[in-house]
């Protein structure tokens, strides 16, 4: 038996309901609703694994490409690069994102394996895809920088930037005043930025 949460209007779809429009799914993805993420996984994971399997890839390849494709799509959605399209089914769009990631992997290993490309698509000419994939390097560096951050600072950064907690919520969790938390957030972000810049300089 399901109960309605007080903060969710009854008309809003939940992870338990399958009845929602593409626009509602889009909205939920921008708000990082669990049910929307789950929906994409449920609908696409198996199909995509099957597709990769038919195109010279393993289950692990499929999982990796699926994560990358989904991340590319969701980042584009959150940054406004991907805008809602009335006639486009979101799962189809996401599948295409994931598919391109795998085709790019295949293309980059084609010279070694001489594997046949499944279609005429050339990922190297897809500038959008290449830009999306370049973000992978940035993500790696930010992850490395975050790992160098210690204690409360790292926790605060994760809560604020990754988990979307408000400063008030973080203040409560840390047992601090909101104003002190605000200052701490600034200090910690500065520390993280310094580490990040140092890492990027080392890698250049």
């Amino acid at each position, binding site marked *: 038996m399901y109960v309605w949460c007080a903060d969710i209007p009854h008309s809003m779809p939940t992870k338990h309901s399958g009845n929602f429009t593409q626009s509602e799914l889009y909205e939920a993805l921008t708000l*990082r609703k669990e049910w929307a993420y*789950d929906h994409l996984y449920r609908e696409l994971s198996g199909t995509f694994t099957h597709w990769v399997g038919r195109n010279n890839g393993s289950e692990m390849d499929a999982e990796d490409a699926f994560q990358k494709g989904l*991340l590319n799509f*969701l980042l584009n959605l959150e940054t406004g690069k991907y805008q809602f399209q009335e006639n486009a089914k979101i799962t189809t769009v996401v599948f295409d994102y994931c598919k391109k990631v795998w085709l790019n992997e295949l293309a980059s290993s084609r010279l070694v394996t001489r594997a046949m490309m499944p279609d005429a698509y050339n990922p190297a000419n897809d500038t959008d895809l290449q830009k999306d994939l370049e973000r992978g390097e940035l993500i790696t*560096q*930010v*992850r490395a920088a975050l790992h160098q951050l210690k204690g409360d600072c790292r926790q605060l950064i994760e809560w604020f930037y990754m988990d*979307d907690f408000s400063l008030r919520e973080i203040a409560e969790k840390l047992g601090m005043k909101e104003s002190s938390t605000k200052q701490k957030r*600034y200090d910690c972000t500065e520390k993280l930025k310094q580490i990040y*810049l140092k890492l990027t300089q080392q890698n250049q």
Partner: protein
Amino acid sequence: MNTAQFERIEAYLQNRLSETERRDFEAEIHENSTLSAEVEAQRKLRLGLRALGIEKQLLNAQKRTQTKQIGQIRNVFWGKMQWQTWAAAASIIVVLGVSWWVWNYNTAQNENQFMALAEKEMTDVQYKSLPFESLQNLSKAAPTRNAREKAEWYVALVYLKKGKNNEAKIILERIANEPQHLYCSQAKRMLNKW
């Protein structure tokens, strides 16, 4: 960089500045390379952290979906198990029921068959009309062998007519095992019906 500058950059990156503020800020960025580098660093840092946040949520979604799928598989498996268990139990009940019914049916059929055969075999009206106890006595104490054997045969037939097949069978087997018995072949024929 101070807190105010940090918040201004943040407001710009989050599109929270008014149109005029944004235009002014972009002009400033254009003029000031240090500010430009700072904005770029902040933009990349936020994008990276955003991506890490999404990655975290995606992993959670993956775990949730897999757990759910495993749960569903378990449910299906358990459902199957339950279905199979119930099916097996039902099958046993059905088999037992059918067997019982068949056995009963066959028994009833056999009984009816044997009754009919016994009736058919009772061609001697005199023996047929004798009380059962008299037949039993005759089978043991009749003065002639023929009379004793005929009485014995009729005892078996009466048992059959009463549906006491086991008792009838014992006598019929005894008769069939005596080649010299007057009703040996009839008893064998009757036993073949079992």
